[in-house]
């Protein structure tokens, strides 16, 4: 369910390092499942600077709004444009095609602060 090569936050975002200094960011299966039908995604623009733990956008379900926090600091180098037209893809494929943004990491050391897949799974199990 939760890919071992991803890193996770307690706010239910994931990061996958791409080996070129960038990381792909998304929300977890657990997050989309808790939110229910996702109908709106608000993301930063390419070129924006984001900071670990700060709000970088929001995801809205029929019922509620939820902030998305940047799991790592850096510059947004790509935004998943398909989500503005088809936000429901976040319910269908949150760990792959429905990624949110790609970030050029300004401090790659930050990744060490995040949770492993195993730690994240025990975290949500206990939540």
């Amino acid at each position: 369910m939760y890919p071992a090569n991803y890193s996770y936050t307690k706010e239910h975002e994931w990061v996958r390092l791409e080996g070129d200094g960038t990381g792909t960011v998304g929300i977890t299966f657990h997050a989309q499942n808790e939110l229910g039908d996702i109908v709106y995604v608000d993301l930063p623009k390419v070129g924006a600077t984001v900071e670990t733990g700060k709000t970088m956008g929001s995801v809205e379900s029929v019922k509620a709004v939820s902030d998305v926090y940047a799991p790592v600091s850096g510059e947004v180098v790509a935004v998943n444009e398909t989500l503005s037209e088809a936000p429901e893809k976040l319910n269908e494929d949150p760990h792959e095609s429905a990624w949110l943004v790609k970030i050029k990491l300004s401090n790659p050391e930050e990744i060490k602060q995040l949770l492993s897949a195993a730690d994240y799974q025990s975290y949500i199990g206990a939540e």
Partner: protein
Amino acid sequence: MSVPGGSLRTTALNGVHRKAGAKMVDFGGWDMPVQYSGILDEHHNVRKAVGLFDVSHMGEIEVRGPEALQLVNFLSTNDAARLQPGQAQYSGLLYGHGGFVDDILVHKIDDRHFFLCVNASNQDKDFEHIRTHNRFDAEVEFAGERYAQLAVQGPSALQTLQKLTQTDLAPIAYYHFVDGVVSGAPARIARTGYTGEDGFEIYIAPVEAERIWRELLEAGKEFGIKPCGLGARNTLRLESKMALYGHEIDATITPWEAGLGWIVKMDKGDFLGRDALARQKQEGVKRKLAAFEMTERGIARDGYEVYLDGQPAGWVTSGGPSPTLNKNIGLCYLPSDRAAIGTRIEIMIRNQPAGAVIVPSPFYKREK
């Protein structure tokens, strides 16, 4: 995410919802299903086929006695004297200052017996309110524990429920009810609802709830019935512009402001709140509920500020996506002279203004 604590109240169907994997939430102190298969799916299913809701959290209050009518009519805005036995009406319970204690359904059983269906989170307050003002020859009984309530809603609701009862459902007119039998159990069968679709709300003994719930799901299978949660109930009622206490109405809002003048019968004689309503009508109603749809990207949510000409002018009472219309819609309070259809407003969404326009309501009306 929070785990329900021991303090939450539960309906007779709580175990059924949990076992079925429904997503549960704290709804005004009740542990209730917010969704089963998903709010959008359930919403469409009610519009196109039929859905089954557990609304047993709703409260029931019985008023009996020689002056039951006098008590009901003194405390509610609509005119219960106009009801025939077997008829129901939407009404308001008001404070002396004209604000809402609650919005309720008044069912007339007979001249000496009225059955009130009230909001879950208001039921204790309502009961106290009615008891406090009971200077009539009438008895007021809190009956919430004696009833479970199921709502069968949608174009196939009648066919579904008909399979479980000998009572001929077709002749029951909208806002009428019959005391009959459903699946062998005594049931009050009312043609009412909170979805904007045809349908029934049935009042049964809690001990029968689980069995009848299952039998309704079985009976409705051929019509594609689905169990539904309170999430879809909310999107359905919003499209139909039905008020939700704590949102469109509360202690600070009068029926005139809420666009509910049609449930106020000023000519019926004195009732609690009447003087305040007369005064407000004379002085002019300064704000009113208006319906809007977003013209720019963004979803308006309850409590967001509404701006007119760059100035704060009101607030969103309910907002969200409309699954039927595929638009983002909402209701808001605005100055009465600035709420005309076509008026451009801005909703402050997380510190960013997003455009919207006042539109006719309800947003959705079923074809009859």
